């Protein structure tokens, strides 16, 4: 009994520093965000409580548009990450010479400081001198230079492509690990029964990758929803708001225009969505764990 007691104290003592640190740096600011969202906090010295005024103010057509844009942007980005990640993982799993080198070559976008990768994309999207526009012209696909970041539609997709580029390596490596943990006996049995490569992929690999795909799409959903650096460096939310997602909008309101109270209200709306994703994620992992046990 005393031993148990000592262990209990010891365990919590081990946890305490990390808990306290995260409480101060993350949990308290989270609570503070909620409090600030009911104030008119700004650079001025005085701060008053204004009730729901911030929320009433932000919920207009523009904000609704931003929410919808955030969701479509996130949806396309996550979808492409999953598709390209699966494509890459399946290919890198093939027992061909050079596969170890190929696996290493997948990692740079993930490892390199994000800002640097984004600068390089910024150059590639340049209409006059960039690679994409240059090659498209060379091959006669477009007539003149295409400044990808100068038009709403192309800027929207350009930021998605860059986000996908940064996200794919992690997805690929994770999927690769998932594929490699599938027992080889299954493939051998299928092979003995004469199943084609495609059949084996369709009937063994894909179904058994299921849990990994669900986990990864939830995790990417959350990180993509939070994506800031890419859009901020490439377009700062422009041109004329066509790449303004909720994070960018919050940053511009709070830090750009110094409207802390209103910015906090916008941040709270993001937090509500994130919490919903969070709950969905925990539900799903629990379900997956339960399914594995049976």
């Amino acid at each position: 009994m005393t031993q148990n007691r000592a262990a209990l104290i010891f365990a919590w003592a081990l946890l305490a520093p990390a808990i306290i640190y995260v409480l101060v740096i993350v949990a308290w600011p989270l609570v503070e965000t909620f409090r600030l969202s009911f104030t008119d906090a700004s650079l001025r010295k005085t701060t008053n409580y204004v009730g729901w005024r911030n929320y009433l103010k932000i919920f207009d057509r523009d904000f609704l548009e931003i929410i919808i844009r955030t969701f479509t942007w996130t949806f396309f980005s996550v979808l492409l990450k999953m598709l390209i990640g699966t494509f890459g993982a399946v290919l890198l799993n093939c027992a061909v010479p050079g596969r170890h080198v190929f696996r290493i070559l997948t990692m740079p976008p993930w490892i390199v400081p994000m800002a640097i990768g984004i600068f390089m994309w910024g150059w590639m999207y340049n209409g006059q001198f960039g690679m994409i526009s240059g090659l498209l012209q060379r091959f006669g696909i477009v007539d003149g230079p295409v400044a990808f970041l100068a038009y709403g539609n192309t800027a929207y997709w350009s930021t998605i492509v860059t986000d996908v580029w940064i996200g794919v390596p992690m997805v690929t490596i994770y999927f690769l690990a998932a594929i490699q943990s599938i027992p080889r006996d299954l493939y051998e049995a299928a092979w003995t029964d004469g199943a084609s490569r495609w059949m084996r992929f369709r009937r063994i690999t894909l179904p058994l990758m299921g849990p990994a795909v669900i986990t990864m799409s939830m995790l990417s959903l959350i990180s993509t929803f939070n994506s800031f650096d890419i859009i901020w460096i490439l377009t700062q939310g422009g041109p004329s708001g066509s790449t303004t997602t909720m994070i960018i909008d919050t940053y511009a309101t709070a830090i750009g225009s110094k409207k802390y109270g209103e910015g906090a209200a916008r941040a709270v709306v993001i937090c509500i969505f994130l919490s919903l994703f969070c709950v969905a994620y925990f539900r799903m992992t629990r379900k997956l764990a339960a399914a594995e046990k049976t």
Partner: protein
Amino acid sequence: MALKLFKKDQTRAMIDRYSWAELVGIYVGIALFLFFMLAPFIEGFLVSLKPLAQLFSSPYSFLPENGSFEAYRTMWVSVPSFGRYIFNSLLISTIATIIVLILVVPAAYAFARFKFKGMAMVLAAFLAVSMFSGAVLLIPLFRLMRTLGLLNTYFAMIVPGAAFLIPSAIWLLRTYMMRIPIELNEAAYMDGASQFYTFRRVILPIARPGIIVVAIMTFIGAYAQQFIFALTFNSKTEFMPLPVGLFAYFGKQEVIWNELMAASFVGIAPAMVIIFFLQRYLVGGLTAGAIKQ
């Protein structure tokens, strides 16, 4: 590898045998995939070799005409403090990594070994934390940093940065430590070792490989994600880390692209060296925790 398998089991080798068409398909697929992953780096490298005049000329030419490494020399002249930015980045990442390790190693051990009431909740809370990015909490964090007097210091970037690296580090190390046999704890207890002694003298030495993986992951994470806090909480040039410091190449009139790219490659180098030497641990460490539970 393939050869060894062939001797052991014929089926294994046969299953991995591809027809010519399949081989071509696989390599074309891999080439396309890797092209997408590496195109920005290839283009960036070529840009760093081109003289500025050639960069701003139409029509577009993929390869540099009279390429040189001139930009790799002039980049130090145009932005004299560039070396300082790299140093700052390394310093910030290193201190953040140390803070994370000090907090995470004991916590991960506690989560791996003890099952007391409430601990599952705390673990879930840690995971939930990783889902709120710094961008959402920027306003109160800014005020917190101002109250603590940390604005415009290294710690304005280190302290919040470390907090967001803690959850994934705990998760990774916990999975690693769960694989350490509990018999070791029991044997230590029989010999009369205290809890702390067991942790310090039995568990820590065994967990060292896992701790190294977590340290590398945390360092890379800290090195890669120094943008938003540095942009918002620090305005002093001498403390700027690389990602923000690179904006120095954005001149008043135009961006000095070739030097920007050259500087980017110089800035990437430390991370790349780490990856090159440690990629084996990384792939193992990344995937071990995630899948095989």
